[in-house]
C-alpha cells in the first residue's frame, strides 16, 4: 500500500485545529462556571425539596441523559424554527457548553462533598457566613480536587467536539474533523487524512494532559487530595 501525504492539506487542517481548540476551551470554561453553580446548588441549594435543587437536578439529568448529537441538532435546527438563528459555531458551542456543564456539575458536587465537613463547621464557628465559608474555605479545596476529573472531561470534549462537523458546511466553520472529511472527500485519501487527524488529536490531548498535570502539581497542597507517589 502506498501512503501519500500532501503538505498542502496542512494549512486547512491547522485552521481546523484552531477551531477545535477554541470550541473546546470556550465550552469547558463556560461549562465550568455553569457547572460550579449547578454543583453548588445541588449541595447547598436547600435540599431535595427546594425548587432550586429540583431545577438543577432536572437540568443535569436531561443533559446527561440525552445524546450530545441530539442536543446539537436540536439547537442548530430547532432554534431557528423558534425564530432564533444560530450559526454552526455558536450552535456547537452552546450544545457542548450545556452538555459539559451537566457533567461538570456532578464533578463539582463530588469535589465539594469530599471536602471534610469539619471545614465548613470551623469556618462558620469563626463567624463567616455560609457564602464566605464556601468562597474562602470550601471552593479553594474543591477546585484542587476537581482537576483530575476535569482533565478527563476536557479530553473527552476535545474529541467529542468533532460532532460539530455535522453542522458545518462552509470551510471556515469546520473543526479539525470536518476539515479532514472535506479534504478526504475530494481526493479519496481517507486513510492518510484520518491517520494525520488522529495524530493531531493525540498531540492535542497529550499537550493538555501535560499542562493540567503541571497545574495540578503547581497548586498541590500537602494533605489535600491525591497523595504523593509510592503510597
Amino acid at each position, binding site marked *: 500500500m502506498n501512503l501519500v501525504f500532501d503538505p498542502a492539506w496542512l494549512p486547512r487542517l491547522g485552521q481546523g485545529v484552531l477551531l477545535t481548540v477554541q470550541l473546546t476551551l470556550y465550552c469547558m470554561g463556560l461549562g465550568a462556571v455553569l457547572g460550579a453553580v449547578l454543583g453548588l446548588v445541588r449541595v447547598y441549594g436547600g435540599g431535595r425539596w427546594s425548587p432550586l435543587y429540583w431545577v438543577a437536578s432536572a437540568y443535569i439529568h436531561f443533559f446527561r441523559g440525552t445524546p450530545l448529537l441530539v442536543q446539537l441538532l436540536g439547537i442548530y435546527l430547532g432554534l431557528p424554527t423558534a425564530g432564533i438563528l444560530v450559526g454552526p459555531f455558536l450552535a456547537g458551542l452552546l450544545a457542548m457548553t450545556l452538555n459539559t456543564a451537566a457533567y461538570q456539575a456532578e464533578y463539582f458536587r463530588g469535589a465539594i462533598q469530599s471536602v471534610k465537613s469539619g471545614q465548613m*463547621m*470551623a*469556618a462558620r*464557628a469563626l*463567624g*463567616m457566613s455560609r457564602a464566605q465559608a464556601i468562597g474562602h*474555605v470550601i471552593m479553594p479545596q474543591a477546585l*484542587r480536587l476537581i482537576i483530575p476529573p476535569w482533565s478527563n472531561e476536557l479530553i473527552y470534549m476535545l474529541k467529542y467536539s468533532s460532532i460539530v462537523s455535522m453542522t458545518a458546511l462552509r470551510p471556515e466553520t469546520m473543526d479539525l474533523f470536518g476539515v479532514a472529511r472535506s479534504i478526504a472527500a475530494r481526493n479519496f485519501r481517507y486513510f492518510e487524512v484520518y491517520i494525520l487527524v488522529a495524530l493531531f488529536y493525540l498531540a492535542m490531548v497529550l499537550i493538555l494532559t501535560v499542562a493540567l498535570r503541571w497545574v495540578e502539581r503547581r497548586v498541590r*497542597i500537602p*494533605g489535600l487530595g491525591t497523595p504523593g507517589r509510592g503510597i
Partner: protein
Amino acid sequence: MALLRVENLHKRYGHEEVLKGVTLAQDAGETKVVIGPSGTGKSTLLRCINRLTEPDQGRVWLEDTEITSRRTDINRVRAKIGFVFQDFNLFTHLTALDNVRLGLMKVRRMPRAAATGRAMAELERVGLAAKANAYPAQLSGGQQQRVSIARALAMDPKLILFDEPTSALDPELIGEVLSVMIQLARDGMTMIVVTHEMGFARSVADEIVFMEGGVIVEQGTPDKMFRSPEVPRTGEFLRKISDLYGESR
C-alpha cells in the same frame, strides 16, 4: 451579670433526647470544665451555645445578646466565641499563618498587614511562630491543635469553647496543648472545656460540671467535686476517670 447564660437547653436527635434541660451560667474569666461519660450531650451543649447545632428549646445569652433569638446575627456572635474542635479542623489548604489570619481579614475586616502582625503574635503565644508557613498536614496533632487555639485567640473572643481538645492526640502530644490551655486560664480567658483530663480540671478549673444522660448531675469547685461530691454517681465517675486518665498531667 454572668458573661454567658444557658437556660433550659433541649436537643433531640430523632428519638433520642441528648440534652434534657441544661442550665448554667459562666462569669468572665472563669474556667469551667465539663465532664461526663461519652454520649451524654457535652459536645452538643457546646455546639448549641454558638448554634453550630440548633437547640430545640431553651435560650442562650452572651452578655445581653440572646444568641438563640432569630433576630440575632449569629455570625457576629460566633466571631466573639472561639471554638476549638476535637479534630482541630484547621483549613487544609492554608498555612498556619493563613489559618489564623483568615478570620481576622474576612470576618473582622482587618487590613492584611495588621492581620499578619496579630496572627504572628498569636502563633508566638502558642509557641509556633517558626511554623507559620507550614500546612496543617506538615504539623503534628499537638501543633495543629495549638494553631487552632491561636486561630480562636486571634479573634479576641469573649469566651472559648473547647470540645475535647486533646482526645484525638497521641499521649505524648497532650501536654503541649494542655500547657497552652493552662496558661490561657491563668491569663484570665473565659473557657468552657469538655475534657477527660482530670489533672487539668483540678489545677485550673473554677468549676467542674458533671453531666450524664443529658442533664447536669452536679457542679461545684474541683475541691468539692473530688473530695465531697453530694451525688454518689459523681464520685464514682471521677474515681473511674481519674484511674483511667491519671492525674499526673
